[in-house]
């Protein structure tokens, strides 16, 4: 009985082994044939493609029909977009993609293969094919659409300034921070930042955080925004307080420093800054005081250089180093500060250049 079982298992394994081997031979041969064909096609049409890229005309000489032709052009155009910046009113690649790739992409969005659909979404993004919005929304609603595809589509729709994006996002899985930050960077601009500020407290905490990240990343400024950032220092959510400080530090501007100093005084007096949970806030406050240099900040930085958290001490020393008299202030601290850690970090930053950090 066992003998028969072993024999059967051997035969099955042998069959599987042969099947895999033959499949691999077939696949490798096919890949080689496909690559050669693709290279030959590109070679044949290279002059036409070049002419089209320079002049924007003659695309009819290299209209793709087969898969390898589409893929060859996709890769070539994508490489070009990485290295060449076209004029605003001359975008031959976008125009070509819109003219010839759309039917191909419509078909590929229906594919049963997840990889094919993902590749398609990446190229729609690459070539910014705005006319595909309805197809994207249709795919978003299909059962086949996976969370990864949804994230890509939300970003694309954000890029295309789709009107009902918020509606479409309702009920969908919450976007991870990275995606949300990327999305908000596409949505928030100098023109509409005040609208986001007005509705700020209607958004979920993760959206609020992403709005602040977008503001920081794009260096957006407005009076309303300034007021919001100062107001957020009193937020009950620690993460928002840290992000607000980080945003102010990055913008390097506060219309008045009094509320910030008042906030620091309150934190110190109430013992809030003695809690380890506020390490991040103290660190960002130290960074802010290096970014917006003001003489009134110096006593606070002198205190933070003796903080128990290494990161805060380091940031305070780095901020002091940026001040005009930073080096001499640190030299004094290195010999007179009552705290040994503060003296060491001051010594360290006398020698270091914040620009290299």
């Amino acid at each position, binding site marked *: 009985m*066992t*003998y028969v079982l*072993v*024999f059967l*298992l*051997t035969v099955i*394994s*042998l069959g*599987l*082994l042969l099947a*895999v*081997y033959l*499949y*691999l*031979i077939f*696949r*490798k*041969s096919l*890949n*080689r044939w496909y690559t050669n064909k693709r290279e030959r096609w590109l070679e044949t049409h290279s002059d036409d493609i070049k002419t089209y890229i320079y002049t924007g005309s003659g695309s009819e000489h290299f209209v793709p029909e087969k898969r390898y032709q589409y893929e060859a052009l996709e890769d070539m155009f*994508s490489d070009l977009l*990485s290295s060449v910046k076209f004029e605003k009113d001359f975008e031959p690649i976008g125009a070509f993609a819109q003219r010839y790739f759309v039917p191909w992409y419509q078909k590929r969005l229906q594919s049963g*293969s*997840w*990889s*094919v659909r*993902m*590749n398609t979404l*990446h*190229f729609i*993004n*690459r070539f910014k094919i705005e006319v595909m919005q309805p197809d994207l929304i249709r795919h978003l609603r299909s059962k086949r659409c996976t*969370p990864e595809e949804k*994230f890509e589509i939300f*970003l694309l729709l954000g890029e295309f300034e789709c009107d009902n994006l918020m509606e479409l996002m309702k009920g969908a*899985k*919450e*976007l*991870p*921070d*990275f*995606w949300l*930050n*990327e999305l908000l960077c596409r949505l928030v601009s100098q023109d509409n930042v005040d609208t986001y500020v007005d509705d700020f407290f209607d958004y979920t905490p993760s959206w609020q955080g992403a709005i602040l*990240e977008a503001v920081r*990343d794009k260096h957006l400024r407005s009076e309303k925004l300034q007021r919001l950032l100062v107001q957020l220092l009193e937020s009950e959510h620690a993460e928002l307080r840290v992000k607000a400080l980080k945003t102010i530090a990055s913008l390097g501007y506060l219309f008045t420093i009094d509320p910030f100093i008042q906030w620091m005084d309150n934190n110190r007096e109430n013992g809030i800054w003695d809690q380890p949970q506020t390490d991040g806030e103290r660190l960002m406050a130290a960074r802010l005081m290096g970014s917006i240099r003001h003489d009134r900040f110096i006593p606070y930085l002198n205190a933070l250089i003796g903080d128990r958290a*290494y*990161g805060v001490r*380091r940031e305070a020393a780095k901020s002091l180093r940026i001040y005009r008299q930073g080096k001499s202030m640190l030299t004094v601290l290195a010999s007179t500060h009552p705290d040994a*850690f503060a003296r*060491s*970090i001051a*010594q*360290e930053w006398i*020698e*270091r250049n914040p620009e*290299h950090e």
Partner: protein
Amino acid sequence: MLLLFLNKVIFVYFIGICVFYLVIFLLSYGRLRREKGLHGIEPYKRMKSSSFTPPLSIIVPAYNEEAGVIGTILSLITGSGKLDYPQFEVIVVNDGSKDRTLEKVIERFQMVPVKNKVHLKRNGIETRPIIEMYQSEVYPHLILIDKENGGKADALNAGINLSQYPYFASIDGDTVLEPDSFLKIMKPIVEHADDEILAAGGNVLIANGSTVVKGRVQETKLSRKPLVVMQSIEYMRAFLMGRIGLSRGNMLLVISGAFGVFRTQRVIQAGGYKVDTVGEDMELVVRLHRMNLEQKWGAKIEYVADPICYTEAPESMKFLYRQRTRWHRGLFESLWTHRRMMFNRKYGLIGMAAMPFYFFVEFLGPFVEFFGYLTLIIDLMMDRVFIQYALMLFALMVVYGSFLSMGAVLFEEWRLGKYPKISELNRLLFFALSEAFWYRPMLTLWRVRAMMTLLFGRAQGWGEMQRKGVSD
């Protein structure tokens, strides 16, 4: 009677292993089939240009790596092969090398001493004393620490102490990376929707035989040396089948020291790498799993198939033997340190499946196999073998093992496609078929010897290997 009983035990054990590997194969198959055909460049462009991609500290511990260390650093920081990652720092840790590792790095990258030493213990892990710290005048994000010898784990800890970014990567001194390796390995960490990712492992390929120029692989080729081809097959099986399969159930217990990314804060929380073990990479991963489950972090450890790093494999029996006995010892030490997790329901699949798998299959497997060879010889001598049955069993072992190896080659073709030539495929098949005749018994014997050495408790260090260097 006893031998008959043992024969049956070995048979059941053999079938059990076959079933387990088949399950792992199917799990990997599911994931890699889904990813088959995914574009190799486009999905990573967003991360590459985003200011929200978290910065990364890359730690390169080096002990007597004068042949490979320059190539490794070059592959990270300079030239056309420069690492494609938005923001990173490179921390090379010279762990008291006896060769010219330190001098070579100082000369090549114009490293100058940084006088202050405040930040050397900023992340609070105790290490052997630091002799000097250097910063490159040409590449400010390149740091070199020269420290007293304390082993690889101690060197990594010194690097962690200095790392300032939320994630750190550990790579070996002889590792050669592809420019987009870190973008690829960080993708699940950056874009993950649900759980925190504690660590992610990437794919390790063997550099021997390939053309490597200035720290960048120009052409991947399969070596012509049988010992290296066998290791290539082993690596494909281990990484593309074993690790992917295990990671699908969050059961991955090993992230290769040659290429892995970790969440800095969690590793500091865990106390860094354990220094008195030779299997520090596995021990850390098991400890992170343990803390994750005990402290309910709800985190995961991932394995990603497409990020690639190349490493130099031993070409001589002597160094391969050393490497494998060190690995086996490391495996045992990790399992022994965390023996409380074994068959403990509190640790879920890690305690009930992964730990037993590593103990009974990976650790005890060679012993059982060795015993199998031994009983076969005794039975042959006593003329008690049903030859046809024994040959059939052996044939099954050869064919099934080769099928799994070819399965791993198939996964490589789907996801990486680094070996396009049919002649290379034929060589892989030939050596996969030959494995049971020479390579496997040889490794079994070495591992059994490693188990014996364990009984005598002889300590091992870095496990020095004569490196030729893979880069021109």
